[in-house]
């Protein structure tokens, strides 16, 4: 006779459990953790380089870098004299909670109050994996067009902030900023939107202020 075994299990339950462990670890060490996701080449590492220059004046910062191959990004952060841990996924198109957990033993907690996790460049899979971070930021550069949020809704819906990067290129593009903002808010009405250029530094200060505000709010809670 056929028997039905009821499971009612979340398929990503294991990831959620490890993410909760990561979050506990961050909270125990008093570290506020912000993840960055985007398509490849939208400027996550460049944004970090510029933002960290400002943020390090206020708080102790560190970075976990996720890439399919190379430790180029971790070396860019280390070149600023800041702690960076590289996670090489060897083909996997996203970070999961377990990979982040594996990197945590190399993070000098105690010397890091604000930790960034830069995900693999990909707007699809990273959306499904909670890493235990407090804040999720998605970066989209203006050269990618206005409609990324509609094309990759899961990522934009699950993010707290959107950084529209490379605005120094706007004079050379047919890019409708108003439409881009409207499309992003259509998918996620609570999304906080920043316009930045890592070349001129425009808008990065505002982004940093917001991160520090969120950090203070988290510590107060």
């Amino acid at each position, binding site marked *: 006779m056929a028997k039905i075994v009821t499971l*009612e299990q979340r*398929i*990503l339950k294991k990831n959620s459990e490890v993410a909760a462990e990561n979050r506990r670890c961050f909270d125990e060490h008093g570290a506020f953790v912000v993840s960055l996701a985007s398509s490849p080449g939208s400027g996550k590492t460049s944004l970090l380089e510029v933002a960290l220059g400002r943020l390090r004046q206020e708080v102790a910062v560190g970075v976990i870098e996720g890439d399919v191959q190379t430790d180029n990004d971790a070396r860019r952060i280390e070149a600023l004299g800041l702690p960076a841990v590289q996670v090489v996924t060897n083909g996997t198109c996203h970070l999961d909670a377990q990979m982040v957990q594996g990197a945590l033993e190399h993070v000098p907690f105690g010397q890091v109050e604000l930790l960034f996790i830069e995900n693999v460049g990909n707007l699809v899979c990273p959306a*499904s994996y909670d890493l235990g971070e407090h804040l999720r930021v998605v970066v989209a550069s203006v050269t990618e067009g206005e409609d990324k949020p509609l094309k990759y*809704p*899961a990522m934009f819906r699950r993010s707290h902030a959107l950084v529209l990067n490379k605005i120094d290129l706007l004079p050379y593009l047919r890019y409708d900023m108003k439409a881009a903002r409207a499309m992003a808010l259509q998918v996620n009405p609570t999304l906080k939107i920043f316009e930045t250029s890592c070349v001129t530094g425009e808008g990065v200060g505002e982004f940093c202020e917001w991160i520090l505000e969120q950090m203070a709010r988290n510590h107060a809670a």
Partner: protein
Amino acid sequence: MGLLTGVSPDAMQFYFEMMREDTLGAQAELDIRLEPLRAECRNCQAVHEFSEIAWLCPVCGARGLNFQNGDELHLCNIEVEDGQDRNS
């Protein structure tokens, strides 16, 4: 499966068929149930149920739907035949 997971039912079905080969579950079938998307409009407060992703309120046309679900990705149950079936 919720509609906002970003997981494609077709892809899930395709890989399930690939992975069941040469296993105990070679004859197994995957039955995917898509959960309708429920949302409340932030503007007119109307509550809607969608069978595919929507971003605009069908009543007032406002953007900014407050989704009440959509992230479901659950293994609900497994239907198996017990040993007696095989022996008889």
